[in-house]
């Protein structure tokens, strides 16, 4: 291995590269392009994934939303078109009867006209249980989320999101402890959270205790919809089907009636998107590696040509005492050196382009890509693969160089 650190070795390589500047440059570009593509595409795919995780990161994603609609089949004496409303008891049944359930969160929602001093707006108001904070983690800036005590005492308290805060308060104002009017009833603000609104269900930014909602909006046992979260490895599509069948049964709806309950399967939707992202990454690897291999082959090819052109020189060297091993390792090293240079340049350019992508599309609210980066291990694997490929491909011209007998090599013109 000593020869790798030998100045002469590198001088020899430098000498032969200098003789073929243009051709060397062009072949380097091949490999460079391959690893460049790999870095940029993987970085972009990662950026998309990060963006996705940011959007759903605080969300129990293995979830399905279910709400009542109208029947589409007559059953047990009821006409079709019967209006179906979910009840609190339905939520309890689903939780206890369906296998693999983690949480069932009943929710209600209504429109509210909200006033704070001279500012006002109309928004959705939710009636929520403390459990919501478990399935849609609220990143509270100030205060707290609704608790059991609020539920028990049907308190007139509310938690607002950042959008509502911005519209009702001046910048820097501390909202906790102040009162806002929702449909002419005063509510004490107990929490202010920051998340972007994500997932299914109607829009809105104010949460009040579920029981308060029941009372104020006169809902009785009715609920708007349930959010059913399954345990991580449970098939959410199956849970959705089971839950709907159970609900059909509870509400005396025809078992085959698919319209009585509406649903939005977040888990299934997310699985499709992650599947797409995985596919993207796979494609990236495929394209990148194919390009890399093509590039390395180009380097092998160029070395083959230079070796042919240098036949005579190699013959001279052998007449002067160069052992076949020395000739061979010189050519292999040249190949590895070229692939490494090309790889390093590709990685540097790729990183550079990712930086540009990041500054252009990676910031602000609607950022398409969040933190588009490539892992160091990935880079290392690509780089090592490159070195291995460079070595293997270099062996071909190296073998050809020494397979010519010195006497024939010397005769070459």
């Amino acid at each position, binding site marked *: 291995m000593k020869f790798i650190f030998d*100045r*002469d070795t590198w001088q020899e390589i430098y*000498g032969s590269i*200098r*003789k073929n500047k243009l051709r060397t440059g062009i072949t380097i570009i091949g490999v460079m392009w391959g690893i460049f593509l790999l870095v940029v595409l993987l970085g972009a795919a990662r950026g998309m994934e990060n963006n996705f995780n940011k959007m759903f990161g605080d969300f129990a994603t293995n979830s399905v939303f279910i709400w009542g609609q109208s029947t589409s089949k007559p059953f047990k004496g009821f006409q079709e078109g019967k209006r179906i409303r979910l009840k609190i008891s339905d939520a309890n049944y689903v939780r206890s009867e369906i296998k693999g359930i983690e949480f069932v969160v009943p929710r209600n929602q209504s429109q509210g006209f909200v006033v704070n001093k001279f500012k006002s707006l109309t928004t959705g108001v939710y009636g929520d249980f403390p459990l919501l904070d478990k399935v849609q983690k609220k990143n509270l800036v100030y205060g707290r989320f609704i608790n059991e005590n609020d539920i028990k005492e049907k308190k007139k308290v509310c938690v607002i999101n950042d959008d509502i805060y911005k519209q009702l308060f001046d910048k820097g104002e501390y909202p906790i402890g102040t009162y806002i009017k929702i449909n002419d009833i005063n509510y004490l603000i107990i929490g202010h959270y920051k998340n972007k609104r994500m997932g299914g269900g109607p829009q809105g930014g104010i949460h009040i205790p579920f029981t308060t909602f029941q009372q104020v909006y006169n809902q009785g046992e009715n609920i708007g919809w349930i959010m059913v979260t399954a345990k991580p490895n449970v098939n959410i599509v199956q849970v959705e089907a089971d839950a709907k069948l159970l609900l059909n049964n509870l509400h005396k709806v025809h078992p085959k009636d698919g319209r009585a309950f509406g649903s939005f399967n977040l888990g299934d939707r997310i699985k499709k998107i992650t599947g797409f992202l995985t596919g993207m990454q796979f494609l990236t690897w495929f394209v990148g590696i194919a390009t890399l291999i093509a590039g390395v082959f180009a380097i092998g090819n160029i070395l083959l040509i230079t070796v042919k052109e240098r036949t*005579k*020189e190699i013959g*001279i*060297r*052998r*007449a*002067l*005492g*160069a*052992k*076949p*091993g*020395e000739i061979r390792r010189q050519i292999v090293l040249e190949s590895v050196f070229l692939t490494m240079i090309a790889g390093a340049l590709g990685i540097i350019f790729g990183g550079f382009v990712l930086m540009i992508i990041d500054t252009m599309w990676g910031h602000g609210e609607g950022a398409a890509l969040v933190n588009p980066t490539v892992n160091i291990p990935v880079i290392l694997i690509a780089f090592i693969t490159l070195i291995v490929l460079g070595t293997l491909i270099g062996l071909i011209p190296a073998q050809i160089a*020494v397979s010519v*007998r*010195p*006497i024939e090599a*010397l005769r070459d013109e």
Partner: protein
Amino acid sequence: MIKIKKLHKSYPVGKDFLHVLKGIDLHIKEGEFVSIMGSSGSGKSTLLNIVGLLDIHDEGSYYLNGQKIESLDEKKAAILRNKFLGFVFQSFNLISYKTALENVALPLYYKGIGRKERQEIALNYLDKVGLKDWAKHLPNELSGGQKQRVAIARALVANPKVVLADEPTGALDSTTTDSVMELLKDINDEGMTVFVITHEQEVADQTDRIVTLKDGVIISDEITEKGKKTKHYV
């Protein structure tokens, strides 16, 4: 130094074989200055290449410095060439992108000698052939005679036992031919065995012994006037 007995060599030509060397017997002692003459195609280069371990013989025996040469692999051959043999070619065979000094130093590189020492030794030999001031020049900046002198310096640099020269003056005019022959004579005077191919009588006359080849056999082997005065033949 070189002992050849009943040496045969043929080349495959199509389906046939071209029998080039047909039983050569030759013995060259240490310190001799021998030339081979013969018309073109008589097998001179073939013989020299076999002696130089660049090619292998088919039959007969060859001893170099007492060592029997048979079934050599390329690695062993390279080591022996590096250790015992120095080559001078008609077309110089300098490496075009290396300076005169780097060319001369190359055999030392393959001998595993360190860079500094290599350059020192190489510069010494360049000085010996009168080209010290041309050390940093590339071959294409040198005249034919200068190139051949660089090549001779390169052949000598690793301190071989034998210098083999295949028509070293074939590409030179008569003045430079003389200077190159002077140089070879000097080397021989210092004790080096020198083996030269030529088809010029004047060149051959400056050696001590002329071996004449015809159709792959030695037809004469004579001591020259000059040779008769040396210690080998009295």
